[in-house]
């Protein structure tokens, strides 16, 4: 019930501390990589919940997942989490930190998913269009996912524009099923 509250407090503390030390960009990169690890390697999240691993072992895992010994502020933060026994909330804290950092620096995070690799120029144009419309900087990532069959999925912040062929096919299938039932 208090997950949101706790993760927000820790994320705010980390951001303020990193800014004080001038290391906020380095910490942001580390947290981004860590967040990606949580999605790509589910066992990493499970390992952090495991009571058998010692705090030192967990710290080693986290530092490896976030790109190595990169920032003093990040290092201390991990120690703090381990001491206060809040390491299970790390994923939520990481996501919240990214949100807070982006809000502060007016950065928008966008992801373009296509079925096949697109031309770099298309990608750059899209990025500049979004930047102009929203008036901030855009951090764009590209993903290739053949399962969407065709079209694209554009995710900007929380909003998603799903123009993929796969989801259109799915929608047609559901509506036909409804009509002909």
């Amino acid at each position, binding site marked *: 019930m*208090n997950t*949101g509250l706790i993760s927000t407090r820790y994320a705010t503390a980390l951001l303020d501390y990193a800014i004080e030390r001038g290391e906020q960009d380095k910490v942001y990169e580390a947290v981004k990589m860590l967040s990606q690890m949580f999605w790509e390697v589910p066992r990493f999240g499970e390992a952090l919940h495991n009571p058998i691993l010692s705090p030192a072992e967990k710290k080693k895992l986290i530092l490896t997942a976030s790109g190595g010994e990169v920032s003093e502020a990040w290092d201390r933060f991990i120690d703090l989490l381990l001491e206060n026994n809040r390491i299970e909330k790390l*994923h*939520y804290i990481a996501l919240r930190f990214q949100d807070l950092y982006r809000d502060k620096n007016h950065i928008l995070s966008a992801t373009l998913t296509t079925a096949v690799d697109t031309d770099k120029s298309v990608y750059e144009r899209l990025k500049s269009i979004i930047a102009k419309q929203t008036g901030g900087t855009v951090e764009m990532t590209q993903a290739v996912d053949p399962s969407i069959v065709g079209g694209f999925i554009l995710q900007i912040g929380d909003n998603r*524009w*799903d123009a993929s062929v796969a989801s259109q096919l799915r929608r047609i299938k559901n*509506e036909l099923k409804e*009509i002909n039932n």
Partner: protein
Amino acid sequence: MSNNVIKTSEVSEVLRMQLEGISTDIKFDETGVVMQVGDGVVRIYGLHNAEANELLRFDNGVEAIVMNLEEDNVGAVLLGSSAEIREGSTVKRTNRMASIMAGEGLLGRVINTVGTPIDGKGKVTGELFEMPLERKAPGVVFRQPVDTPLQTGLKAVDSMTPIGLGQRELIIGDRQTGKTSIAIDTIINQRANFEAGNPIYCIYVAVGQKGSTVASTVQTLKEYGAMDYTVVIAANGSDPAAMQYYAPFVGAAIGEYFRDTGRNALVVYDDLSKQAVAYREVSLILRRPSGREAYPGDIFYLHSRLLERAARIISQQEVAEHMNDLPPSLKGKVKGGGSLTALPLIETQAGDVSAYIPTNVISITDGQIFLETDLFNQGKRPAINVGISVSRVGGNAQIKPMKKVSGTLKMDQAQYQELAAFTKFGGDMDKVTAMTIDKGKKNEQLLIQPLHQPMSVEKQVAVLYCGTEGLLRDIPVEKVSEFEKQFLFTLDVNHKETVLDRLKNGEFNDEITAILRKVAADTVKQLQN
């Protein structure tokens, strides 16, 4: 393979038209990502603008309802299987509150909590209106006092704890004491109203029951012709806890559709104890703080807001049209004078009415019918304990003849039940006590009624008149049920217009009572031979 049978709608032209008609509009969806899923609950990161009780949809079509709104994540309960939902799945907002599509087409159907038919008869037909599951109850101004009876067809209920249209009457008792039977008999008894053209639409909500039990209940309703005016909502034991939690709200929403369009409806919640358990399960998994017996703190509010929606709406059209919280789908279709009566059922453990949930619901409803295992086992069915059963609406929900006849019946029977224990001591009794006990025993026999045989109100009045006026003085207790049968038979054959029809219209005068006395005396004489 039956999939190779070509349906008539699969003609190419028709398919092409359908494809054209499908909207392929693409729009921006607000999305979130699943962090945790398990036990019917999903925790989603993102969805900053999600509202409480909003419907969310996953990519595979499964829906969820938002229950917890936190700083950076949303807790939602799944209305379906979590089989294809994983960490990292995307969820999107639908911008709609949880609701059910209600209409005349639902009558005779069996549906689940999300409105999908589960009786194999295809889609629900006809015009459907979107009724929200959560809705505020009508305010004081839009109500009127309960003044019309809801005839259950059970002598014991209609005489001593009468139910009116718009009332909430709790049916409470241990397992296997006949709670569902009282509700089903009430539904069956509405057949006469349906045939006469002013139906009371019935909604039966089965929460957490066995599928086989629901199937046999539906079969019973079909046999007695009750399915023509009944909707059954089933959230069986194997359905996710969220579906069991929301099923009574679906029943209330459908009942409100009838209520707000000027019709009368009856909703039976069978039973609310299982809904409380489902809500407890969902709340504990959402990590909400638990209270007494591990129920969440707002368990009272759960039942009170559900039961407050049963009301009798004021007949004045101009006032009723301005009812608070009318759903947009009903604008322009509101008629005054409708009602929604609720019969919640609660199962007690070992007769303990002072447990948490039973005391909560007793304080909410306008009376209770308490069923006891001992009475049931002694063959006194319906096994109503008259002493502690009460209806706070009372005489206002009875027709004049019934009121006259059953005036002191409840108190007499309660007194008799107390005295009956007394007689076990043996010994001499004064004449008055002996007479009270004799009359009480015979009335008790009169009140016994077989399953699924509701009795019309005029026959009830006639039978109870004999009991309360002491016309059974001269026959033994064992012959009382035979007396009842013969008496009613004679009335049906010889005195239908002179007695029965006039009683039904609310007449009760010396002429009628004279005929009743004569027929009773004749029947007694016949039995004595």
